[in-house]
């Protein structure tokens, strides 16, 4: 049994911001801008979601949250933009469990709100993005 506690380190992952992936993601979010390898156009604002589910390369990972897929859903998502993310950048995301709270759904079921914060830095060590994901777990939350 995984014991969840706020501030648990969920590890980090490093990934390249590739033109093909940016174009594929842009098309999926109805963005018809002409992304090019040498363009200075920042990637779509929610592009970082493409790494949210990547397995962590270091200690700790999302599966260790002990969540079963049938009972969780994405409740909220928040981004703070601190700098541009460009094609060709290499980003490192460090994630931690930043909050756990218990609440009730509209129809009185117990639910648990789990917040994962990821901080993204580029290849120059500049922090460019903070992402917070609120996962809602219902039924069997303990």
């Amino acid at each position, binding site marked *: 049994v995984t014991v969840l506690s706020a501030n648990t380190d969920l590890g980090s992952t490093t990934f390249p911001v590739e033109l093909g992936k940016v174009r594929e*993601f842009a098309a999926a979010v109805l963005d018809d801008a002409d992304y090019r390898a040498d363009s200075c156009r920042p990637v779509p604002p929610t592009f970082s*979601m493409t790494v949210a589910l990547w397995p962590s390369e270091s200690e700790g990972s999302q599966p260790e949250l002990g969540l079963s897929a049938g009972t969780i859903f994405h409740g909220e998502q928040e981004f703070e*933009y601190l700098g541009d993310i460009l094609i060709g950048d290499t980003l490192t995301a460090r994630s931690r469990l930043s909050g756990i709270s218990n609440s009730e759904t509209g129809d009185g079921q117990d639910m648990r709100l789990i917040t994962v914060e990821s901080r993204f830095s580029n290849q120059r060590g500049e922090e460019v993005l903070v992402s917070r994901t609120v996962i809602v777990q219902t039924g069997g939350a303990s």
Partner: protein
Amino acid sequence: VSDGRVRLDELSEGDECSWQLPTVTRSHFVRYAGASGDFNPIHHDDDLARAAGFPSVFAPGMLMAGAFATYLTNWFGPGSLRKYRVRFTGQVWPNDSLCFRAVVRRKNGAARTVALELSVANHDGRTVLRGNAVASVGPGG
């Protein structure tokens, strides 16, 4: 400057902008799943979705959040968002039509930013997403 972006002097508190997505389809869901890497089957496997008690697959929330970010980027320009927050308040089903609406709630002339209130409603008027954003806006003039 005629790059098509809105300028600060063109905006007032209470202004609003809206965009329509006439028909949401399973193709939107699948394309988003592939592009994002979020392969939760509840968004593409109808048999599984029905077994879980839903009438059909439904849209990944970040599809609407991503599309909304695209509309805001088209309005304010690439890289203009400073903060963006969304809360998913209802499911979006295949063949829903959606209206995305952004209202200027505050305008900060010194910081050259606007604070926006965001919502997405389906054709029944049910709100499926609420959010807010802060965008940097060019000075204009």
